[in-house]
């Protein structure tokens, strides 16, 4: 069975090696990191029955034997579906949702408790904030706060479960109807997001990027949020309007934000590219991380283990897990 690992995620050495070490069935792997290398991409795709890649571009060469496309990521937004042959089963991975839920709780706590400001002032200036053993200006907490989760999938549910244990009131909005509400007290259809937003002390964007969510959090919806509300985005940057979010934070129209996903990413030519054309890094109410909320050791083990397991299942002719769709 010919399996091609393609692109700067699936063919990254530590990823492909870790997956191959976990695969138990006999396969013939090809590893191609640079998708711009068409000399090698043409044969890699021409022969593979399985491709492991998070990306599929419109101009990719033909893949006549392809039956199974396994993404090593959760989001399929870089896969150009019309360019795939018919009858290809596409799977993604999970196992990152627990790590991302940890990030959501960590940042909603850190923003509420003003952890970075307090710890930085104490570290740099030994500023006891007018207190000493207790006292000084008060900070916030999350007990009793309303957490609204936009996109109630695996990440949203794991976040809800943890937030509920802190005594938060969890509500959510989801595109499709939700049968099992889990730890959320109430689920809104996405079309009624405007009714949910004014209630939230924390809004967590845990949705995938798609036509319904692109630009969803625009200036109008940011204005519906409480002036103290916190926004956490671990979904995709393009769900939020970049200019509108920057303006809302800069003018203190919302209380703060934790952003892990961005409008701009680094390239080999510009490895330290700023993540937006606007200076989010100059805003004191923003916590920012470089798209790493899921980059935990545990999530990596679970995800790469899931890819290897699916390759084994396919080779044995058994049912695949995490099937997203089959192309027609």
């Amino acid at each position: 069975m010919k399996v091609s690992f393609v692109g700067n995620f699936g063919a990254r050495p530590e990823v492909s090696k870790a997956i191959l070490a976990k695969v138990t069935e006999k396969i013939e792997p090809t590893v191609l990191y640079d998708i711009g290398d068409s000399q090698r991409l043409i044969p890699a795709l021409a022969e593979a029955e399985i491709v492991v890649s998070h990306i599929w571009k419109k101009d990719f060469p033909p893949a006549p034997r392809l039956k199974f496309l396994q993404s090593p990521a959760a989001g399929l937004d870089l896969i150009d579906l019309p360019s795939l042959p018919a009858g290809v089963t596409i799977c993604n991975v999970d196992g990152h949702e627990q790590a991302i839920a940890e990030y959501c709780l960590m940042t909603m706590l850190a923003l509420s408790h003003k952890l970075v400001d307090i710890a930085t002032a104490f570290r740099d200036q030994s500023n006891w904030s007018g207190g000493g053993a207790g006292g000084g200006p008060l900070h916030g907490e999350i007990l009793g706060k309303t957490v609204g989760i936009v996109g109630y999938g695996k990440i949203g549910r794991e976040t809800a479960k943890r937030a509920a244990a802190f005594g938060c009131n969890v509500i959510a909005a989801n595109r499709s109807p939700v049968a099992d509400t889990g730890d959320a007290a109430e689920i809104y259809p996405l079309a009624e997001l405007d009714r949910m937003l004014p209630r939230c002390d924390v809004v967590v964007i845990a949705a995938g990027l798609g036509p319904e969510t692109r630009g969803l959090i625009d200036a109008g919806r940011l204005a519906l949020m409480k002036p103290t509300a916190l926004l956490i985005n671990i979904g995709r940057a393009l769900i939020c309007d970049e200019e509108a979010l920057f303006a809302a934070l800069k003018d203190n129209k919302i209380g703060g934000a934790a952003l892990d996903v961005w409008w701009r990413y680094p390239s080999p030519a510009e490895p330290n590219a700023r993540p937006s054309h606007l200076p989010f890094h100059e805003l004191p109410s923003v916590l920012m991380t470089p798209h790493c909320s899921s980059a935990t050791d545990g999530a990596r083990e679970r995800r790469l283990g899931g890819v290897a397991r699916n390759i084994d299942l396919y080779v044995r002719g058994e049912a695949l897990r995490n099937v997203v769709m089959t192309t027609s």
Partner: protein
Amino acid sequence: MKALFLGNVAADTYEGIKGELPPSLDCVILNDPVDRSALPEAARDADILVSNRWMADYPPAPHFRLVQSVATGVELIDLAALPKGCAVCNSFGHETAIAEYVVMAMLALHHRFFQISGEFRERGSWSTSWVQSGTPHGEVRGSTLGIVGYGRVGREVARRAAPFGCRILAANRSPRENDSDVERIYPLSGLDEMLPLCDTVAICTALGPETTGLINARRLGLMKPGAFLINIARGQVIDEDALYAALSEGRLGGAAIDVWWQYPSPNEPNRRGSRHPFHELPNVIVTPHNSGWTSGMVRRRWDEIADNIGRFCRGDSLINLVTTA
């Protein structure tokens, strides 16, 4: 019935609860910490004192029957200076806020949050992202949390940590009933058995003879290499020199320290919390003894105090009774 609110915290408390007090209660508010000229008159016929301080040299207060502390610790209330039979009650409301801090600090340490977000903000470094094949950071799931001191704060920590999928152990001075969040509760004498199992150790115990210097060089040596230590209790529970050595030599993975071995004074308002430069260590989160200092804590504390004053006025049984003089 008359109540004396003494000191600035008590005065703030009065402002927060005046609407909830019995209308018949006569309240006197003295919030000047220096001028005690009005105190003898106010203390003479007061039934209730709301304060965190009543010292031996204070004027006579023959009618005090309830001293309601505005804090948890009542070490500044001199029982000998109170009439016999006077109830002393304290107030809580901080335990859930501190539990939030403990879980937040545990997450931030495992996720290397300060380093990653700091480098990204200051230098635009993407080195930890998937885009640049960064070294993964840790997560709390599947790790073992050991809670030293399983009281009000410790239990709130366990309840919040459990859904993260951690294994939770605890050690406590007096025997405690097992609960569903904790796998095992060790006696404090079993601490040496618990420490080597923990990826995170959270100190949530009170300071007393059994806990002063409890976390010494030997016990720090029992912890896993790379383990994290969180202290929200009192500085003196941990040996200052030994902790600095363990952190600066990289034997521990990091720490979150909210309570200190030395405190600021009016002369030295920016005094460092330790004689060692903990603040220079990269994986140490330092905060100025304010883990529980939230607006919610103040509201809960006010509600408890208002509730207790109401109970006293109605002749009902009191909550949070510490002792009787």
